């Protein structure tokens, strides 16, 4: 098996080629923040939070494969500053009010804010108008909390195969929809498997019946499913 050496934050690490910077970093206890990445789903490099510095160029660790003699810096001041700005942009873009959210305390966006030291949001809030879609008998989507990570779209296509979720429109008008932009309850392709609920990092797609801070998810089921399918 071919072995290559990559340097991450000054540390020489021996690994095999074809793996992503993120995989190699995690294996070696180096923390790189992510949001749209989820073990078991394809990587798109959309949120840009996992950017790392490779010889002055900023690339997403989740999509970039390691190469021999690659030098990676995961937490330069510039990178950290950019990550914070990106996070602030996310908060300002939606209506992320933790105090009223079922995912309070169990939200990846909230965790990132704490991890990156986001004390305040230095860009004006957009206060967009979104409608809650609670038409499905068991689940609901609150787009105020959606960060457009696309995990729901990917899990529904790649793991469940129903392809119920997709993106519609573009730019700041982009949103996730079910089938041809019908209410979730009317989306004939939906199998109600609930995988989108488990993978959604925030309180956007949730199970009904949870109250403030009661929503807890198990996104790791996807990686588990992927593993089991590989072997059996």
């Amino acid at each position, binding site marked *: 098996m071919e072995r290559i050496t990559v340097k991450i934050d000054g540390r020489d690490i021996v690994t095999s080629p074809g793996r992503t910077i993120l995989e190699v970093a995690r294996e070696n206890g180096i923390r790189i923040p992510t949001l749209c990445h989820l073990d078991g789903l394809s990587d*798109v*490099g*959309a*949120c*840009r*939070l996992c*950017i790392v510095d490779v010889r002055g160029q*900023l*690339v*997403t660790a989740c*999509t*970039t*494969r390691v190469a021999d003699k690659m030098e990676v810096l995961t937490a330069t001041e510039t990178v950290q500053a*950019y990550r914070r*700005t*990106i996070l602030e*942009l*996310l908060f*300002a*873009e939606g209506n992320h009010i933790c105090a009223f959210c079922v995912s309070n305390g169990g939200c990846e966006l909230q965790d990132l804010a704490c991890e990156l030291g986001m004390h305040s949001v230095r*860009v*004006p809030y*957009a206060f967009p108008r979104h409608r809650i879609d609670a038409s499905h008998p068991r689940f609901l989507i609150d787009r105020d909390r959606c*960060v*457009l990570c*696309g995990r729901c779209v990917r899990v529904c296509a790649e793991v469940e195969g129903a392809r119920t979720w*997709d*993106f519609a*429109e*573009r*730019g*700041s*008008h*982009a949103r996730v929809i079910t089938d041809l932009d019908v209410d979730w309850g009317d989306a004939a392709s939906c199998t109600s498997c609930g995988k989108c609920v488990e993978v959604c990092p925030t309180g956007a797609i949730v199970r009904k019946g949870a109250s403030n801070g009661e929503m807890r998810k198990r996104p790791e089921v996807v990686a588990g499913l992927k593993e089991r399918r590989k072997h059996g």
Partner: protein
Amino acid sequence: MRRLNVLVCAGAACVSSQSQETRDALRVEVERQGLAEEVQIVETGCMGPCELGPVLVVYPDGAFYVRVKPADAAEIVSEHFLKGRPVRRLLWEDPQARRIVEQKKQIPFFEKQLKVVLSNCGAIDPENLDEYIAVGGYEALGRVLTERSPAEAVAEIEASGLRGRGGAGFPTGLKWRLVAQEKRTPKYVVCNGDEGDPGAFMDRSLLEGDPHAILEGMAIAAYAVGAEKGYIYVRAEYPLAISRLRVAIEQARRAGLLGTRILETDFSFDVELRIGAGAFVCGEETALIASIEGRRGIPRTRPPYPAARGVFDQPTLINNVETWGNIRHIALRGAAWFRTMGTATSPGTKVFALSGKVRNTGLVEVPMGTTLRELVFDIGGGIPDGKACKAVQTGGPSGGCIPEHLLDTPIDYESLKALGTIMGSGGVIVMDEDNCMVNIARYFLEFTCDESCGTCVPCRAGTRQMLEILDRIVEGRAEAADVERLRSLGETIRRTSLCGLGQAAPNPVLSTMEHFADEYRAHIEEGRCPARVCRSLLRYEIDPSTCRACDRCRQACPVEAITGQPGKGSYVVNADACIRCGRCRDVCPFGAVAVTSGREA
């Protein structure tokens, strides 16, 4: 025998000025005056000076007629075609020399140009395959197929130094080599005809005026890299280009120049046309490929590059329309010939779409290395109405503005980059003292913000934030800190966006902030728009010493913001009600309405 060839321009601009009705009128007159055997009327692609359309050229005289109307047909036919007396009132007149120019090649607009890629546009009928062949069309393909190996074909393009004309300027030969080296088949060649920059119409004109050149270029490439299938992706907003391409593809297939066993060799290649659906982002190569595949047109991270994994995950060679337009010339005349034009790092010519505050707007082709000043003044004819040139914008929404004092820069990829802009696809917008650079930056940012695909956070949310800051600036609600906010956000977006759209979106803002900082300062600190464009910062006032109380302004005002009595004293504009539309200024016969900007001292 035909003794006169009358070429009528049928580029989109002239068509919309009714050049086809003019052509029809000419045909009727020629018939009526018994000259049908002697006079041939041909429709061609864009000749270039779109401002002056409909244009037509009469050969062998070379007489260049401008702004021809159907009603002029009878006179042109009887005076010029029959009696040999060109109709002087319709010939192009040099505004500076105040003389009528008899021949097309004497017109300054054409004198300094070097038409290579555009050599057939305006010279042949794009829907006539024989004419394309007559000027040497498909000879390059024939020679490559019968006399050269694929490797030699790649080497020729590499040696030429041709760089991608879509904007990035990536070495074309290198891209060909990378695809040629890929082992997996099938491979594809793709033409990027999504030309989305506002103000750019180079690719459109080439597709409309010389579609076979693109087909020939792609066929040569397919042979060189080992592909048998090609896609031509054209934006839906170019219906004329699409129909001309369809005709050309059909003609080429019927003539055995496309399809199986081209020119009876073992080489087969065919193309499919794909139409865009209104997304600027689909000009980005990975988004374009997604669109061809029937998926949502959004970009993806690279690597892998399309050369390795492109259409349907196969090795793909994707080039811009103008790049394709260069291929047959290089294949025919050689890399050494190509290098005699242009500069060492940017050989060849470049097609530019000149627009804005310049006399001769339209399509031009010049060797790389021509200075911006020559482009704007010698070819463009300078700024009309005695105004001073303020800046030249290149590269569309991904580019920047070059201030007047830097116009002696020779045009090539590196020099433009050093000025903080990019070559881009070739759109050049000229600005004068009446343009507000902040407003211009806002215009481009609004465009990119609207066209953002929405996948990545910095572009989707960041450009929106930048736009809101610019809104504050042009509306006089900004604070001093906003300049730094813009710069900082701009840097973040530029360095962290997923694709070129986001990475380049802050350019117009950052570029104008650097070269025209005083305009930003005036807007923010003084609430003043120096060019008097930003409406919220304008005040319309009537000068009491000039006002004659004629009542015209009060009548013209759509919101009844002007008060006064006819014949009595001076009229007054109510600043709170005034919407700054400018109608009062337009109708005042005495020039009594002044527009000022800036907070009251």
